């Protein structure tokens, strides 16, 4: 009786077939929206950066560091190489996911491991940069915006690495993730690509521009 009535009920409306729920994965959708939120968080710090740079400092950028009497210097070349590490990690992750489509679970695990390795390398190089920069977050608004932007990004790299590590643990221990259903993996890789894109933007706007 139940099923008959359901059919009858939909016919009564006279507006065609019943719309089925969407087939987008909830994890993917929530991650996309969350990344929108994250983008706005970065945007707020970029706003600070641009207002400090174009409203206050005017065209003197990088400004003079009163402690040394010289302009602040950022290591463009080393960070450029580091940027390449991070960008390539997006491709290794993509490769792992791509191999999973062909059912190659071993390659997924390898892809994840290499990606995590590249991410860690990026963090270590960046930390080393902090150590040798010669100025601190308290050094003028320049130091403040530089450290908060890169620091916020570094925090996101750490979170991304945690997500990828969880994926690795789940893939290895529980043989999770099927070619057609791996929401956690999809969401984590979206996050990682986002972290990459933000870094490229950040490198361009803060280091190069």
């Amino acid at each position: 009786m139940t099923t008959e009535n359901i059919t009858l009920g939909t016919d009564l409306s006279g507006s065609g077939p019943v719309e089925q729920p969407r087939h987008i994965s909830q994890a993917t959708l929530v991650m996309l929206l969350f990344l929108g939120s994250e983008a706005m968080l970065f945007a707020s710090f970029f706003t600070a950066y641009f207002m400090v740079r174009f409203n206050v400092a005017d065209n003197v950028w990088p400004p003079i560091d009163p402690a040394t009497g010289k302009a602040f210097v950022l290591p463009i070349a080393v960070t450029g190489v580091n940027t390449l590490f991070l960008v390539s990690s997006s491709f290794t992750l993509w490769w792992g996911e791509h191999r999973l489509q062909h059912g190659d679970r071993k390659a997924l695990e390898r892809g994840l491991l290499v990606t995590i390795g590249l991410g860690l390398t990026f963090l270590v190089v960046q930390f080393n940069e902090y150590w040798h920069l010669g100025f601190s977050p308290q050094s003028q608004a320049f130091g403040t915006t530089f450290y908060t932007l890169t620091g916020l990004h570094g925090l996101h790299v750490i979170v991304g690495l945690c997500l990828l590590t969880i994926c690795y643990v789940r893939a290895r221990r529980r043989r999770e993730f099927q070619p057609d259903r791996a929401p956690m993996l999809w969401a984590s890789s979206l996050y990682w690509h986002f972290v990459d894109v933000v870094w490229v933007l950040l490198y361009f706007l803060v280091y190069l521009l």
Partner: protein
Amino acid sequence: MATHAPTHAPSGPGHDTGHHAPPPLSHWWKRAFVWVVSSIFAALGVTWFVRWAWGFSPLWNYEVYMTVIFAFMGIAFLIGIGCFDYWWDYLRGRKVSYEDHSMHGATSWKDYLRPNTDHKVIGIQYLVLTFMAFVVAGLYAEGVRAQLAQPGENFVNGQTYNGLFSMHATVMIFGFVIPVFSGLANYVLPLMIGAKDMAFPRLNALSFWLLVVAAVLLISAPAFGAFSAGWTAYPTLALQGSTGTTMFELAVQFAGASTIATALNFMVTIVTMRAPGMTVWRMPLLVWANATTSALVVFGTPFIAGSQFMNLFDRVMGTNFFNSANGGDVLMYQHVFWFYSHPAVYIMMLPGFGIVSEVIATFSRKPIFGYRAIAFSTVAIAILGFGVWAHHMFVSGMAAWIRIPMMMMTVLIAVPTGIKIFSWLGTMWGGKIHLKTPMLFAMGFIVTFTIGGLSGIYLGALPSDIAMHSTYFVVAHIHYVFFGGSVMTIFAGTYYWFPKMTGRMYNEKLGVWHFWLTFIGMNLTFFPMHWLGTQGMPRRVSDYAPRFANVNLFISIASLIMVAGTIVFFYNMIWSWAKGPKAPWNPWRGRTLEWLVSSPPSLFNFDVTPQVVGGPYQYGIPGARHAVVFAGPELGGGELTETDKRLVLVVADEAVASASLIEDIRRRSAEGYWRFTYVVPSNPDEHRAAERRLHAALAVLAENGVEANGTVIDAPPMQAIDSVMREDTVHEIILTTYPLGSSDWLDQDLVDRVRKAAGVGLTHLTVLPGEAHAAAASVAVEKVALIANYGIDDAGLTDLVKSRADAKPLSAIVLCPLSLDVPSGSPEAEDLRNEASGRTAILIARLQDAGIQTRGEVLDGSVAAAVKIARTAHRADIALLATRPGDQVEITDEITEAAGTMTVEQVTTDGHTSTAPGASEGR
């Protein structure tokens, strides 16, 4: 049928209600306590180590340590209380089940004090917490008014006053207005779209407990030195001051994370979990409003997070965001802050628009006017809302060229807002308006919000804003839009869904009192502030010129009217929640899906996924339907659907349950176009009797699948009919009376009078008194045979039958078996028979007067013979053998055999013989 179907069983089939029994409440709180205490030491250790390793000097810095301690404590509490348990198992590679419902649902109040994944529990958790914050923030407001009652320092000093108004605004905004909408939507939104829960129930639980952390940080901030920079926390003022400011900045982070998580949850739920058939243009407007609000939260809130991080870093770490001596930009804070906080006023208003759309459509009994216009204007407000932030900064000294575009965008927002206001007015136009409490608040909202919108034009216009920016005009404006806008809609929504959430009805009279006290109190309090503002009284200052003294005293006194209203509100809510009458499924005859499930809904809302087949507001259109909902198997799998059948009013007194009336109603009901409301005019003396008759009649009709309800009204017939017709659109009246001569109503010429006054079709049905007292032929009414001889006229027996009838509708057959020792034709036998007939007649009269359909006779024969006649001739369900105390009749084999499958019970009367027939009911 919706209003009469039984409540769902607490657990639906097909759901695993838990893999293991959840541990007791103390488990979670002990764990939380241990985590929080340990986190203090961890924070001290970590901070010390980092400062030592980095070579900071000095190692001790109070502000830094407190910041880390509070942040650690918040997170540790969340871990300890168990918000992360599932994810911790997941990330360790443990086996976890997505369908783990061990934390779902509440069976006692204790389940509300631990993380719970049931959106209904979370909704109530939110509402209770936020209304507590409302009280706290209201008390701060009264502190402000106490200080301002007279000029000079008469209550607190200036510094404390700054703390008072800062805390008032902060707790109201971050602790009440923003999250209370999350609470209401948490409860009703999944129900409205036909979902069993939110998309991410565990994230939902985390959102709530994040808010708990935020609320505790915020409310305990004054203990660490008041936070006194205003809720906007402008640097450099916010960089000074005590640790309370740090706690505010941390609390905003926790509250922000909470709202972002909730908003993500809402958006994913709305996109992926709508019931089959619920296209976006069939979504209730509350769903539209919350989808839009969630987008605002997701894309706006990170900006306040950013602004408060910057404040915190400048305060605690000595960074230079706002330090212009070191190249910082203090104006930048205002841009970042208002880029969130202007959309935030829509975060605080759009869900209210959604609530008002629901309430006004339901209580106007009309399809909402301009459904798509309201939906689109909601989206338009959200988009425009991101382009007007700098209208808060006209006098800040920002770049002058931004001001004109911002002003134009600001005034442009009046267009979509006006579309909404006119759509609501258009909905009410020509509708059948029911002035229930939610509707009163919705209509009050339209008035006050429009006033707030108009003063907004003055403040949005550059020239007048420059003049009035720092005056009480701004205070008047914000309270008209927040209190007259958001808070009024919050009250409307709370009353509207109170029956659904608690399963009980609130007290309507107290609700109306609350509305008028609030409405009058708020206008008396805030309207004079417009005048104060234009006269130049500055805001955010603890003192003022003596010429404002009288008006300020008036305002302070008027604010107490709102306090009185709020006390009435809380009394009503708490009392009704505990002791209010049981609520039906659909007390407002709403059309949206939440009204098609029980009140409160079952554990997983819908046992069978509902099918949406039409728009949500098709009021007054016969045959139109929004959704088809099927009951679970335990209810027989029948269809539960909202209908718009036309209403037939049935007016009857003693003939309520007569067979011919019921037969007439059944015949009409089969046509499928009608539903029925009984009104039984009565008086206080006969009220209970009338109710018993009505319950018997409704039971028979319900059994026959007739949609009917009814009330007993203690009023003359004309007045009773009038009161129903004010509430509902009646299409026809059936008036049932005794025949001419035995009917008071006909003597009063009632039929013609009703026909003239009502102006609708009227059917007059005549029922013989004997027929009115005949037992109804229905299994819904239990047939009770009363077998007794001496003692049959005891008052105790009448009371016994009446209390049985109150428990379950019944009809009675009185049998008085007379075992004659004398020849049956003899005068003695005749006397005995007359005496027995007299006794029996007394009982019959009493029961009939008590509203129980009763017939009876005196039999020649034994008790066993009477039992047999009860079973065969009267088809009784149960026989009661009534005796006086100490006068037991042995239930012999003969009686048992005569009874067959019928139950036989022995009852004892009290041995007290009442002499006045029918006296017990006062006729």
